[in-house]
């Protein structure tokens, strides 16, 4: 199996990486080859030890200056398809892009890796690209419109992005029975080529919905119209190509499946496989210390500002409450991290809310909690909540992604950003230890019933086998 990751395993700690680690180690009969696609400059050393049945392929760096070695191609001009950037822009950015022409273009990239830098440096390529781009950025329909502005700087940046799309597609991959792709984005590119050239079937597992998260990221980062248009349309183009090519799609939550169906994935292709966790001994009683714990990165998607405001409200109503937040600041979110510190200061939270930094023992820190809180505006099926359930801790969370189906019956779900709703939930549980204990126990029982590692792994094993069989036939 070829496992294609994007910005996660094995170089970054997080939910997707933990899932990859579980999958590789939990299916020892499967021979895995892991192809990580990463942004240049990120951590060099793997943070996970791959099991014996898995091999890490050289990572594929995008936006990197470390390009593949130059090869002598002889004296001929070579097979330079100067229409390649134009084809890519039409296939990926048009509202109704052509999937077939996209795959043909990506196959060209794989077959002519040495031609790519020449193609993208040719003036004719640039001219054809601009000719193709102009109608794309003026396209208008009932449910979409053109960007408010799109100039030559935006065009040049897009041109460079397409070069890296081509480079990613050009990367050599080992032959595999199944390409298991972990994101419907850049990670699909090598798999699309393998499918076209060798018939390798594709299994797509989405933890978050790629296109949804790209749009959400563009909204909260306040991008320029051109940057926003490129970021969102490109992710949409990649995601739709992934959905069209995937032989099976396995979202981790029904909430993701709803997005995927809405984006045109056939329900017949979709099989929801929940994340699984290790179930330990039945949990002990709540500590009764008024401790509220959260585990997650400090990232705008986690809406830590709402958590801080909730803490302020809770402390006002329940003065002995103490909030402990475990998790590092995400890469590239330093400004957001600073804004959290400033808000913490402004709210006068002092030692009532402590940023504890990373933890290597998330289950241990959850055991210290009377209540576990999560305030994200985007989630799939968060492992931190699953682990809280395994530890028998009641959860107060925002109802995003797969959270409602997860927390239903074992916690409180409120709309995202609802500070008062979150505070009400936390205060109610702190004031009613019996209720908190009952919900915690219900969570544990639900985890035992529906979210075990064995169930998760056997589901993937079955699905991988079925997809591989489909490829052989």
């Amino acid at each position, binding site marked *: 199996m070829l496992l294609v990751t994007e910005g996660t395993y094995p170089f970054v700690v997080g939910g997707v990486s933990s899932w990859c680690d579980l999958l590789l180690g939990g299916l020892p009969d499967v021979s895995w080859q892991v192809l990580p696609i990463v942004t240049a400059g990120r951590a*060099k050393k793997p943070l996970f030890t791959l099991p014996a049945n898995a091999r890490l392929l050289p990572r594929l760096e995008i936006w990197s*200056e470390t390009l593949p070695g130059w090869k002598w191609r002889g004296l001929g001009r070579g097979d330079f398809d100067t229409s390649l950037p134009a084809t890519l822009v039409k296939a990926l950015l048009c509202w109704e892009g052509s999937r077939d022409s996209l795959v043909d273009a990506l196959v060209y990239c794989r077959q002519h890796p040495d031609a790519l830098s020449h193609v993208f440096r040719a003036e004719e390529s640039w001219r054809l690209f601009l000719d193709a781009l102009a109608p794309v950025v003026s396209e208008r329909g*009932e449910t979409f419109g053109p960007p408010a502005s799109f100039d030559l700087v935006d065009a040049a940046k897009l041109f460079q992005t397409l070069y890296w799309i081509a480079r990613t597609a050009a990367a050599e991959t080992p032959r595999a029975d199944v390409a298991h792709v972990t994101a419907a984005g850049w990670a699909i590119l090598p798999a699309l080529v393998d499918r076209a050239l060798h018939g390798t079937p594709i299994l797509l597992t989405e933890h978050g919905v790629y296109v949804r998260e790209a749009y959400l990221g563009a909204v909260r980062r306040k991008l320029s119209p051109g940057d926003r248009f490129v970021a969102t349309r490109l992710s949409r183009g990649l995601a739709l190509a992934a959905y069209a090519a995937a032989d099976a799609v396995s979202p981790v939550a029904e909430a993701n499946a709803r997005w995927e169906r809405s984006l045109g994935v056939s329900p017949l292709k979709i099989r929801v496989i929940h994340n699984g966790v290790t179930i330990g001994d039945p949990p002990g009683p709540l500590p009764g210390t008024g401790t509220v714990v959260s585990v997650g990165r400090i990232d705008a998607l986690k809406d830590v500002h709402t958590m801080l405001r909730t803490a302020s409200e809770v402390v006002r109503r329940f003065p002995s409450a103490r909030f402990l937040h475990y998790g590092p600041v995400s890469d590239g979110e330093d400004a957001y991290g600073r804004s959290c510190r400033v808000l913490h200061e402004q709210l006068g939270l002092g030692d009532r809310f402590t940023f504890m930094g990373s933890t290597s023992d998330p289950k241990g820190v959850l055991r210290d909690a009377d209540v576990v809180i999560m305030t994200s505006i985007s989630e799939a099926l968060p492992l931190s909540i699953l682990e809280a359930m395994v530890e028998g801790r009641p959860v107060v969370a925002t109802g995003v992604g797969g959270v409602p189906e997860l927390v239903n019956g074992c916690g409180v779900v409120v709309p995202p950003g609802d500070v008062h709703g979150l505070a009400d939930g936390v205060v109610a549980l702190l004031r009613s230890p019996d209720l908190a204990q009952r919900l915690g126990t219900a969570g544990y029982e639900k985890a035992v019933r529906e979210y075990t590692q064995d169930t998760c792994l056997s589901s993937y094993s079955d699905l991988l086998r079925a997809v591989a069989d489909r490829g052989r036939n």
Partner: protein
Amino acid sequence: MSALEVGRTEAAITQREALAVIESRLGRAPQDMLEAAVVLEAWGGLRAEEALATAADTMSVPMPSAPANDGPVEDEPVTRTPIDALAMLLCFLTVVLWTEPLQRTLGGAGLMRALDVAVPAAIAFQWLFAARFPTDGFFRQRLFFDRRVLLTTALAGVAAAAAGGTPYLVGAELAGVWVATALALRARPVCTVLLLGALTAGLYRFEDARPSLGLAFAGLIAVLASALPRGVSSTLYRGRPWRVALPAGVLGLSLAALLLSDRSVALDAHARALALVLLPSSLAAFWGGWHMSAIWNAIPRALRGSALEAPVHRSFRNPVASLAGGALLRVVGTVSVLMPLAVFGGRLIGEHTATAATAVALSLYAVVAVGAALLDAIERTRLAVIAVGSGIVVSVVSGRVLDLAAGGALLAGTLVAAIGIVVFASLCLRRPALLLVWTIG
């Protein structure tokens, strides 16, 4: 109440409420229904299908447009610093000051051989390292990544030169001192200047220059080592790739070869005079190059707001071309003022070797250096090497075939190189959008 009573929470959401959520979050009309849907899901509490359905409906309602531009393009900090100018000045100063003691150790012919090694090696490595380690605030971290390669190269270079005899060893040590000075100045300027002062005193105090040079080289390496961080975990700080840096080194080497191609302008006992006339040329090149370093701000500024069909792709009427023109004017202005002074200064100290031909040649050399730096910055290093290489060929051939006055061959060579560089740079400057595109790597 609208028919859009959707939502998982207790409260239903109407189309008006949906529009309010979208507008308050975005402050503008959504780009498409997916953008509206994610806003409604993340901040309106709707489920995916409901968010998508509501979003599709809201797209038909007019909303405020987004601003066309989010603000002016902000200037990025200039990457070159006055410390680079100081490094250059120190190198020239050392040539002037060290000629006499070095000649005492090596003799006239030996000094010439030493400088034949030192000058090309120093210029090549300075270009190589300038490309590999840009002055961007992460200089020390980038240097840390290459510490072993750098040390090994330095030691191997000195060992190889030592095998060739004393003049070559001194040449390698000189090159090492000049290159290390350029790097160490960025990290520990005071220590570096003090070390060079001590070296100069040592050269005058002792008969043999080699131990002083060796100690100074080792001292500069130690200064650099002391400035490095203890560890850098992220490859984010890795230097620019060798694939980019090595051609820059080759370009530096070819620029040095052009300088040394005319043997009538010998770097021998008259090196002080040559250093004096090279000084205005180098200052001009530095000022022009510094001015050109604003190109990466000028290109986006020139293109920002340009429609895709705008006919600006082939025109000199763009800020980038104006910037290049400004750089050229600075070069011409600097050499026009300073070169006569340098020639006059050379005569005052009894050196009469700097002819008018040499002075003009070195003025043109400044143009070549600035143009070469521009072509290297836009990854057209090969074109620059071709232009400079043509100049070398012309200089060597004319020096051998024609009976030219001192500096005449260099003048012919730099003229050809300057013409080549200006032509190549002009072709590039007419198309600022392509300049941006060419930096794809």
